[in-house]
């Protein structure tokens, strides 16, 4: 990932910033400029919201692929969590061994290194899940 691309979403990734539609109250992560359900009534009115960092495992997998940017992590746990604020968020789960992961397990979000060094030579940080007990 190139530097502009990385920094652009840094805030959203670092503080887990999503958006909320003032019309219907739906929360979105990743952030959206427009609510798909209220559309015209939401344009220019979407509000930034910080997503509460706790949730539960909704589904999980252990990825064994040789993808260039993630080889150094291989194998790694990847999950979708249902956050307490209602949205789903996908990301890596760390600090736990695969056999201890269960659907429904409480997790929270933490800021971590995502990859060693990518094609542009930068070390990238973002959110990862950790067990929350």
């Amino acid at each position: 990932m190139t530097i502009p691309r990385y920094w652009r979403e840094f805030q959203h990734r670092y503080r887990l910033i999503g958006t909320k539609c003032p019309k219907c109250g739906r929360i979105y992560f990743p952030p959206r400029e427009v609510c798909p359900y209220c559309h015209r009534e939401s344009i220019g009115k979407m509000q930034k919201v910080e997503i509460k960092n706790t949730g539960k495992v909704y589904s999980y997998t252990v990825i064994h692929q040789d993808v260039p940017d993630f080889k150094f992590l291989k194998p790694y746990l990847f999950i979708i969590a249902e956050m307490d604020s209602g949205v789903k968020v996908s990301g890596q789960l760390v600090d736990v061994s695969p056999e201890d992961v269960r659907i429904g397990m409480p997790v929270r979000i933490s800021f971590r290194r995502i990859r060693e060094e990518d094609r542009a030579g930068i070390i990238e940080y973002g959110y990862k899940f950790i067990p929350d007990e």
Partner: protein
Amino acid sequence: MRDVYIIGIGQTKYGEHWEKSLRALVVEAGLKAIEDANIYSKEIQAIFGGNMSAGSTIYQDNIGSLISDFSGLSVNRIPAMRIENGSASGGAAVHAGFVSVASGFYDTVLVGGVEKLTDVSMEDQAEIVSGEVDQEWELFNGGTLAGLQALMARRYMHEYGAKREEIAMLPVLSHEHGSENPYAHFRNRIKVEDVINATMVADPLTMLDMAPASDGAAVLILASEEKVRQIKPEVKIKISGSAMSSDFMSLQSRENLLELKAVRDSTEKALKMSKSDIKRVKIVETHDSSSIMGLLILEEIGLFPKGKAGKYLEEGYGHKDSRVAINTSGGLKAKGHPMGATGIGQIVESVIQLRGKAEKRQVHNADMALAINVAGTGSASISHVLEVV
């Protein structure tokens, strides 16, 4: 709206074509289709080219011009556009071609899809194949296409109590059919244990749950009623339904991981257009980019109850001699998955079946087929209904 017919088909073998370039593959399939249609190149009025990844694999864009030029068609000055919708690029190109003929704009068009993956390393292939998921919010965090589909598989087992063995039934079926398809990437038969015990890709999915990265091309010639009357094909095959739908791009954005809303919508619309319903369909090509995707599609279109597709396959449904034949081509799993060609190749297989030319894998009384081509984890879906008329 006018009726649209398929008057020509052509495809390369799917697989690893180290010795052939992207352009060579699409030209090979294209010339076969033109010959099959028994028309002159001057009769072709437009080209719709399906391709996903040439920009990332060989740094080549402007693929429409490439196809037109090397198929020897650019001297005719016809429009040649590339359509890209990830793994559903081929189906989308067919839909675009269909719209252009159905609406009376053209009488004869060429729809050709191609993908060339063995020009890059296996590692790069895994990343390129994941080009259709959200790069900022899925792949950035390590969410590959296979990983995301594995999340669907795990949730499927959790919600429905489906067994791992049931999920493995689709690759087994696809390989059984594919073993009789001379154009298939893989022609070996496999067993449920083989699937489960193969190298893990993204738990619970193994190498044998996943469609391979294939090189290959597939081409159709579409024509209007008027044109078909001139050509007088032996078997008249009509595209009686064509529809395309969309859904949220990333899996996390969807309320229910196991609901493929685009698939349901495009299939309902295509069946409605063809004034038919799923019960009348004899042959289904499902988009088994992974076993779980293939199964979820079969359930979403109403062929099997939710969570039960694998069980039904265990009971023999889906076999070419059963009430509904699934993936007679071998599916994406065994026939292969050259993304830009995949959705077009599904229709090539359907035409072969409807023409009664599928030899050992021929379905009896094949008169209606349904092909479903999907992007990513379900962000786009194109459904086509084909009938002998």
